[in-house]
């Protein structure tokens, strides 16, 4: 067995991933631009961990997850999957590598073929990639159904006969069929009600423990990501703005966007809920026409002139914490009037984030 605990190795390395969708317009269907759904994303997913990918609707989370699995032909970038470069492979070459990477989809209704019985749906990966006999396949399908908590007796029913939670279990069983290492969970709980969400998330955690799976968990539900993820990446308009271990990110968000996002999470305790909220104004700019400089500069409460000029680089501000923001750029931190990352990292969440922002807002 590989010991994943002592020295976590990156199972997936994504570097500068870009996925641009062309826009055609006019009488001659000429290419007039492109939607930069994912625009230069880099991250690692360690073996055995769960990387949460959060962000608001339309920020490119799902596209990012699908691009990592090469369900799209990506525009640029490299994807190192388990030591294999898959960024530039053709779909035909990818076929043999598909078993290591699988996906659980958002809408359990739409992700199952309504004309296939459950057993055939779960069996499809086995049909494609294994040479098992019919009986062996059947046995494997039933084992998978047990593993995800589906009653074996329902193997020959059709998807419409199941509830949303059960359908999602079918989707998970299908993803597990080939013993993958890496699973992209594309908002697997967004279409389920709360009680079922907990069941499905617990199931995903149990399976991770049992089979040593690695997840890229895409969600807009910050509290659910806090529950399941080991590290969290925050996306805004096709970029990752902050990537940090879960505890650090939730205790002390660095990027102004992360702060705004976290302050939008409802707080059940009314006393704590009294804290000041960061309310963003305006809309997300169109990914077809992102603003010059930092993507967030149109809505950022701590915007500086430089933000409108240059794109902030992603830098590691403390071990394992990456943030793409000029507030943390060396030239500003060195000048001494920056929100001193080391300070806030050292003292935990004691310094008010709002205060830091205000300070920064006055700095030219």
């Amino acid at each position, binding site marked *: 067995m590989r010991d994943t605990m002592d020295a976590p190795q990156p199972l997936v390395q994504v570097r500068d991933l870009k996925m641009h969708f062309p826009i055609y317009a006019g009488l001659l269907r000429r290419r007039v631009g492109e939607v930069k759904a994912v625009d230069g994303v880099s991250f690692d997913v360690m073996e055995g961990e769960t990387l949460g990918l959060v962000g608001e609707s339309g920020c490119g989370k799902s596209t990012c997850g699908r691009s990592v699995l090469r369900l799209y032909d990506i525009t640029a970038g490299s994807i190192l999957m388990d030591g294999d470069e898959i960024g530039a492979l053709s779909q035909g070459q990818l076929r043999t590598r598909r078993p290591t990477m699988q996906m659980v*989809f958002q809408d359990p209704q739409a992700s199952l073929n309504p004309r296939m019985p459950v057993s055939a749906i779960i069996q499809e990966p086995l049909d494609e990639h294994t040479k098992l006999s019919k009986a062996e396949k059947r046995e494997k399908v039933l084992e998978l159904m*047990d593993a995800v908590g589906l009653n074996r007796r329902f193997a020959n029913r059709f998807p419409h006969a199941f509830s949303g939670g059960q359908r999602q279990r079918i989707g998970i069983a299908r993803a597990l069929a080939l013993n993958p290492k890496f699973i992209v969970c594309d908002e697997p709980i967004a279409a389920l009600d709360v009680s079922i969400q907990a069941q499905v998330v617990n199931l995903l955690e149990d399976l991770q423990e049992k089979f040593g799976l690695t997840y890229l968990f895409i969600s807009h539900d910050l509290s659910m990501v806090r529950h399941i993820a080991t590290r969290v990446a925050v996306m805004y308009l096709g970029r990752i703005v902050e990537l940090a271990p879960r505890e650090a990110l939730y205790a002390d968000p660095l990027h102004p966007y992360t702060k705004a996002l976290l302050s939008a999470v409802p707080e059940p305790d009314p006393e704590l809920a009294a804290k000041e909220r960061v309310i963003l104004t305006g809309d997300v700019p169109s990914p077809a026409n992102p603003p010059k400089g930092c993507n967030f500069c149109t809505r950022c409460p701590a915007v500086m002139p430089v933000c409108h000029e240059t794109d902030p680089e992603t830098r590691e501000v403390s071990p394992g914490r990456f943030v793409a923001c000029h507030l943390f750029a060396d030239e500003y931190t060195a000048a001494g009037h920056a929100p001193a990352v080391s300070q806030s990292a050292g003292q935990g969440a004691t310094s008010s984030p709002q205060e830091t922002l205000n300070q920064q807002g006055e700095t030219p």
Partner: protein
Amino acid sequence: MTDPMTNMPAMSPPRAVPIEKARSQWRDIWAQFRTHKGAVWGLGFLIFITLFVAIGPLIWDVDATKTDIRNKNMRPFYTLLWDSEARFTWVKPLGSDNLGRDVLANLMQGGRTSMAVGWTAMILAVVVGTLIGVLAGFFKRIDGALMRFTDLVLSLPLLPLLLVMMLLFRDTLRATFGPETGIFILIVVAIGLTSWMQTARIVRGDVLALKEREFVLAARSIGTPSRRMISRHILPNVLSPIMVSATLGLANAIITESALSFLGLGFPSDFPTWGKTLFDSIQYMEEYPERVIWPGLCISFTVLAVNYIGDGLRDALDPRIRGQ
């Protein structure tokens, strides 16, 4: 994968639970089909008419093309009910036409041809239409070319085109396959190749919509190649529109064949089909309405029956409807 999960939700059954045997899908489909009354009637009629034209001539052993001037213009037996003066003979139970040809034998013999032409042309049209529709919808690269070709064929005036095809190829085919088979092939191909466009358009539209569904993406993430993606995920889901256009296509083929025969470009004049019998009798319609009514009823009821069967099959093949 073999040891049972410990902290699973309570749904996981113990391994001793007997596995529900696979229910035969075809039995479910038949059960659902039977709940559609129109479809059952349609199937009944279709079986009846098929037996009528297939086995009928063996029992009612009369040459449909034989003229019998002495017994011409006979009325059917039931006219005796209200007109005891009617010309009638038991040799011609459904009467005879102006050349003394037996109407009953004509119906049987004509039905054979009409049904054969209808089914073959319909199958040809549906196969071509589905193929082009699926290819155009699934592979974006050839979509433009295929659909422009479809538009091109759609924009051709069909009847003149058919006439030209008949004139060009009739003699060659006749020489190669004999007069009847040659014309049969020509008519089937002509009708088939001029009526696949609607199917292609409908199928393409459905495939385009299906292609964006998540289960197709899921199949891609599994690594299913395109050909199996089409056969496993796309085709079963476009079955309904294909079924509908197939039923319409059968009706269309029978009617087009009648029109061709009427224009004198179909089968030779001594070769009965329902359409031709119908058109031959139009000038005597007022005096002898039964000569129009019987072939007309045959065409209408066959088309209606097939439509109902298609309706019932479409419901029966859809597991979502079947489940209720």
